[in-house]
Structure formats: C-alpha cells, structure tokens
C-alpha cells in the first residue's frame, strides 16, 4: 500500500510545531515560565491554527525580492533628490513625527514578538510570532533607510532615537508600547496583534502611506507598499490569537474583553496624533480623520465585533465616546501642538484659507462653531507679529500622557478632567477611558514616567525649559522647533524650488518676531 502524501497543512505542521517535543529531563514550566500568571487558560496548544504557512526558504526568497526592489527605489530617490517632489516642505513634518514617534515602536514590536516568540510553549504560535518579529525589524530598518535622505535635507529627524526616550509628546507613543511589552504574553498579543494590528492598523498605516502617496513622497510610499504583504500576515495572526484564546476556555472571555477595552482606548488616544496629521499636516489631503474613523473603525470594526459576539465579546468600552470624538480630536490635538510649537521638534502652522474651508466642509457640525474662529484669531495675531506660544508646562494625563487639553465631548468648551486617588497620591486623566485604565491597574500606571513631572523634579536638566529642550532633548532650537513660517526648512525649500510662497504667508513671515 502506498502511504498517503501530506497535504500542505500537515506538511507545514511537520516543519514547525513537530520540531518541539514533550520534555522528560527538565521542567517545561521553567523553560516557558510566563504563560500562567495572566489567568489565561490554554487547554490544548495543538488547536492553534497556523495563520500563515511560510517556511524559511520561501520567506528568504520572497522577502529578498522585495528588499531588492525597495532599495533600488531608495537609491534612485536619493540620487534624483526625490525630496524635491513632495507637495511642499510642510509635508516632511509628518515624517518627523513618524520617525521619532512610530519607527521606535516598530523596534519595540520586534522586541515584543521576539519575547513571545521565545516564551509561548506552543511552537505554532511561537514561530508565527518569530516571523512577525523579524518583519518588525524590517519595518524599523527600512523606515530609517527611507527617511535617511530626508534627514540630510530637513531638520528635526536627526536625533530620533535620543528624542524618543525623552521628549514629552513622544512619551505618548513610547508608553503605549512599554505598556504592551511589560504586560504578559497574551495581553501583548491582544494589545498589538489584535487591537492594534487587526482593529486599528488601517488608521495608522493607511493614513501615513496614503499621505505619502498623495504628497509625492516616493520613498515612504514605496516602503508602505512593500510592507503591505507583511502587514497582511500580521493581521491574520491578530485574528487567530483572539479566536484561539476565546475557543480555548470560557474563563478567557472576560479577561480578553478587559484587554480589548483597555487597548482600544489606548489605541484611540495614540491615534490622535494620526488624526491631526491627516487633517492638518498633509498639504494634499487623503480624507478627513472623521471619514477614516468611520470607514476603518465604525464599518470594518463594527462587522468584526458582530462576528465576535458569538464568543460573548462586545464592543469595547467607551466606543460611544469615540463616535463623538471623531468630530473634535484632530482639531484639539493640532491646537495643543500649535500652542507648544516652541517645545516640539517639528513645525506647526495655521491652516491656509483653503485648508480652513476644507475643514469646514469635512466637519460641518463642529469646525465653524468651535475651531475655525480659533484659527482665525491665531492668524490675526500672527499677522500682527504676535504668534503666541504657551509658556507654562501642561499637566499630563497619567495614562495616555497627552496634555490635559481635550474637552468634554458633550461640551467642547469645557476641558475634561478626571482624577483618582492611589496610595495617598492624586492622579489626573483626560477622559473616562484613561481613568478606567488606571483604576484597573494603578500599581502599573502610577509608575508612568511623565515628562512634565520629571522636568519639575529636575530629572531632565534645566533649570529653564529652554535648557531642557536644548540639552536634554537635543532639539536644535531655532531649527527644529517653532512655526513653519520662517523656519530654515521653509527657507531652504524656497531656495531649492526658486519660488517664494504666496504673498500672505511671506508677509506673515516678515512680521513674525518670535521665530529665531
């Protein structure tokens, strides 16, 4: 009798999980010690369905082909001064946020997946995580190489890794991933693979990469296309982990729900930076943040949660708040940065008349009523040579670490304040969502390294704020910070293009006394 040939699934399983075995000579719990403390019950790792089947030989082959093409474009981009093709120099500020705020998270993702890729006792899950780990390393490194050329011609990208560890707004993104990595292995996967990669990734990745495509940024856009097939694999891992945990044991359901609630809210706060990027920083707009939220979260996410209902999973807590926030969050966030533009390593600016009209059209219920008058006032002041910067340091939300400037969503004229007491100390929050997260894990979040508190405690040099910015953050003052108008970036851009900007902006620039 001829033996039966293996199907692809069984073959892949022989080439991966069958490499492992049951230990007889050492305690397997000692080799894989972190699987129990979160309370997740795994009854049978063999039920893990491989989310993708990629043996190493094919992985090397496909990825090498992608790299070859990608680097050919990077080389051509540098050789041909590709940075001159972006819509205008304001666009590059989105890249500054990306390199200082997002690329280091790719490195943390690499570290996090390497950790779970070693620590899960199920070999199938382990290997899937290892492959995501190496992909994430690819992403941080190709992003550096994509931005390397921009760094040679624009300010604010040069000290991205030093800044990520220190600068106040970058602690928003850093603490997000520190939170995920310091969690247990299953929470890490629900946080990053499911809540972020599966539910919210389209709201980070698509806006930045489409933004690049719409604004003539060939290097970043090519990176985006090249990373797409990696991202597709990562999303399948996100879906598998949630199904696997929910099917393993009913006791896992409330734990997973708690994590979904937490990470959904953490994610939306992180994305407020993307929201302002889409609405304010792209000279050529892709779509409004509100539209993106509706398409990628409300429609796509809604369908997903309908599917998960059969496991007893409901929509994340505070989802109804996000339905209101989509009208406000980008405007409030850009306003924060406009106010603190002297303390940031990228430039801010007032939207042009045309851009204000676009915002009015995209946000008919809120923009004219609450935000347009603010920008018009700011413009009047700028025209009088009174471009203002808020000098006192803001209070930060203990959980998301964003300055406490978001409003009540039912009353956009009232700043939203929440507080909790823990071990005799008071902690402040920007929202019910952030307060809820703290209250669930006060022992964790009371450790937050809050940049403003650290400055006041003298841990960031000083004595003045300017000393902190210059010496501790290594912001190149007068180059990296302040308004785009009059910045060295703008001046160089005009010199390269041999153009002057329209008269109105030029006037404003001439009058602006604050810049230098």
């Amino acid at each position: 009798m001829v033996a039966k040939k293996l199907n692809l699934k069984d073959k892949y399983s022989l080439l991966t999980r069958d490499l492992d075995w049951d230990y007889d000579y050492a305690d397997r719990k000692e080799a894989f010690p972190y699987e129990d403390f979160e309370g997740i019950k795994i009854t049978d790792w063999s039920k893990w369905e491989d989310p993708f089947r990629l043996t190493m030989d094919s992985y090397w082959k496909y990825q090498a082909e992608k790299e070859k093409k990608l680097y050919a474009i990077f080389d051509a981009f540098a050789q041909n001064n590709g940075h001159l093709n972006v819509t205008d120099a304001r666009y590059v500020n989105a890249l500054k946020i990306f390199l200082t705020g997002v690329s280091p998270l790719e490195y943390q993702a690499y570290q996090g997946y390497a950790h779970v890729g070693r620590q899960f006792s199920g070999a199938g899950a382990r290997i899937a995580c290892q492959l995501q780990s190496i992909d994430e390393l690819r992403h941080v490194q190709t992003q550096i190489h994509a931005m390397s050329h921009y760094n040679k011609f624009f300010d604010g990208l040069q000290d991205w890794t030093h800044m990520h560890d220190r600068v106040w707004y970058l602690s928003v993104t850093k603490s997000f991933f520190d939170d995920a990595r310091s969690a247990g292995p299953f929470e890490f996967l629900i946080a990053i693979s499911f809540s972020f990669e599966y539910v919210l990734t389209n709201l980070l990745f698509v806006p930045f990469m489409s933004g690049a495509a719409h604004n003539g940024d060939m290097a970043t856009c090519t990176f985006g296309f090249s990373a797409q097939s990696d991202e597709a694999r990562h999303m399948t891992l996100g879906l598998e982990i949630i199904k696997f945990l929910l099917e393993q044991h009913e006791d896992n359901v409330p734990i997973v729900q708690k994590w979904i609630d937490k990470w959904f809210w953490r994610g939306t706060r992180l994305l407020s930076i993307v929201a302002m990027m889409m609405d304010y920083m792209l000279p050529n707009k892709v779509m409004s943040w509100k539209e993106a939220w509706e398409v990628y979260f409300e429609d796509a996410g809604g369908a997903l949660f309908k599917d998960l209902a059969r496991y007893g999973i409901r929509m994340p807590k505070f989802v109804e708040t996000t339905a209101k926030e989509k009208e406000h969050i980008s405007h409030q966030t850009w306003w924060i940065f406009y106010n603190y533009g002297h303390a940031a390593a990228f430039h801010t600016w007032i939207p042009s008349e045309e851009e204000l009209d676009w915002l009015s059209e995209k946000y008919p219920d809120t923009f004219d009523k609450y935000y347009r008058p603010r920008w018009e006032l700011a413009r009047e002041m700028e025209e009088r040579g009174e471009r203002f910067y808020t000098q006192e340091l803001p209070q930060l939300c203990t959980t998301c670490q964003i300055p406490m400037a978001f409003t009540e969503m039912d009353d956009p004229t009232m700043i939203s304040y929440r507080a909790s007491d823990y071990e005799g100390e008071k902690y402040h929050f920007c929202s019910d969502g952030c307060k809820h997260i703290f209250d669930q894990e006060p022992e964790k979040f009371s450790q937050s390294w809050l940049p403003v508190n650290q400055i006041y405690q003298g841990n960031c040099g000083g004595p003045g704020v300017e000393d902190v910015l210059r010496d501790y953050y290594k912001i190149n003052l007068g180059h990296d910070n302040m308004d785009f108008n009059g910045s060295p970036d703008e001046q160089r851009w005009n010199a390269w293009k041999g153009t002057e900007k329209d008269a109105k902006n030029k006037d404003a620039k001439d009058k602006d006394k604050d810049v230098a």
Partner: protein
Amino acid sequence: MALEIKTATLQPIRNTFANIERRFGDKPASRYQEATYDLQAETNYHYRPLWQPQHELNDKSRTQIVMADWYDLKDPRQFYYGTYVQQRARHQEAAETNYSFFEKRGLAEHLPEAVRAHLISYLIPLRHVEHTANLNNMYGCSFSYGAAISQALLYNGIDRLGNAQYLSKIGLILDGNTGDSLAAAKQEWMQNPAWQAMRALCEQMTTVEDWFEVFVAQDLVVDTLVFNLFYEQLDQKLASMGGRDVALLTEFMQVWTKDSSRWLDSVLKTVASESEDNRVLLAGWVKHWREKTLHALHPLVTAMLDDSEALSIADGLLEERLKKIGIIQ
C-alpha cells in the same frame, strides 16, 4: 574614459543622523550603521515588566557579562534585515537547486538501506537540536541589550529554524512526502538511548537564565562540536557507506556555519577582551557546558561513528577555537 552623467547636486545639511555622528564623526554613514546603532530604548522606561519586575524592559543586568558599550558587538557581516535576507536567499537558491537535483535524479532511491537507516537514526533527529538552537537564540535576541547583538541573534535564531526545516526536508525526500521518516526520527529522538543525554542537554539549556550563558552553551560549545560531528565526520562516514550524495542536502548547513562562525568569533573575541572578568566568566561557562556536552554526545557518537577518536577530534577543534577567540590560553 569614464562616462559621467550630470545630476543636480544639492548640498545636504548633514551627513547622517546625530547619534551616528556622535559615534563616528560627521561623515556619510553605512546603512548597517544607521539601521543598528542606538535603535533600542536606553532610558526612561515607563513600567516594570509584570513578568520580571526585578528588571527594566531593556536591562543590561540580564547577564553577568559587562560591556561598557553593547554596540561594540557589531556584526562583521554588516547584516541588517535587507542584507541578511538577500544573503540567505542566495544560499537558499543553491540549496533549492541541490534539493531538486537530488529529487529529479531520484538519488534517494539509490541510497543503500543502511544509509537511509543511519539518516533516520542520526541526521534527521538533529532537527530537534536545531529547534533548541532556535529557542536559545530567540532567548538571547529578546533578553540581550542593544540592537547590534540582538538583531544578529534573531538572524541566528531564524536560521536555525531554517536548518531544522532543511533537515526535515531530507526526511520528506526519503519517505516521499508521507512524513513517516520524520515520525521514525522523532521516535529515535524520544526513545533511542543514544540520544537521551543529548535530549536532556537540550531541555536543560532552555531553562538557563543568563542569556549570555545560553548563547555560549549553544552557539559556541554545542554547535562547534555538533557541526563537526554531523556535517564533517558523519558526512565522511555516509560517503564510505555509499551515501555521498547526501552532502548535496547538507551543503546549506555547511555554508551557514562558515557564515555564522565569522560573526560568533568576532563577538566573543570582543567580549573576552573587554575585561578579565568577562573572560573568566566565559571560561567558566565553557568548562561547564563543554563537559556536559561531551558527556551527552558520547553515547551518540559511539553509535553513529565507528571512530573512537571522533569526539576528541571535535573537542580538539573546540579547543583551538577557544584559544583563537581568547577565552583560554
């Protein structure tokens, strides 16, 4: 005559990123440098890991080895992701050609029965050792400090999965894709007394805490001995048994060893010459794991190779390597 295409030159405002400039001066940097140095967070961590509250997320104290700068452990191959996958893709292409040649010519059918049995008993179970090496290198990747050593350990860990899969494919060629030979080889791994000390060693290595000790045990001690015994001495034995064609299927691993040895020797040399404390630590770990590994390999080598000198030949190579690296005199 060189043909020069005129391109527009714009004067850049800086040559490279500021951290690279601080390390190497104000001059254009390589892609390896920009994609390696200072990538990992160094300070101001927000929360202690729930799973290891005694440590920070990134923490130098996860090993007893002390380095003034962990980025001194650079990779002489200059592997970042792009150069790594392209290099492996070239090796992979050669392996693919070898494997399909082997299959097309039906070389498996020409192997003497004794050779097939020997492969199933000894060569194919080695995939489980490679799997252990995958775990051990991922352990180092996730607990080491600094992107230079961490990324190289990741490449090594992923390579070991690749090696394990190539060994598995040899089994699938032997059994015509039924998986029977892999099942038989796993039986050998689980039951054959000759393998049990080696299996115990593999299991124990995955419970060691200090990542650098694990790295030394696996990549230096076990690999040096195992690669000589399996890819050189066993290779010769198979040839003498009429199975020289098998070398086509293990060429990838042979090329791979050369490639990874260059990196390993350079890293260990740097660590050993950093301080006498480091060197003493390395020597202590080597002594411990060398004894254990020789002991574990003894019954296996006795069964697998006829040569009573086999183990001391391999150990001699290890001795030579330790001297070259500067761990022992």
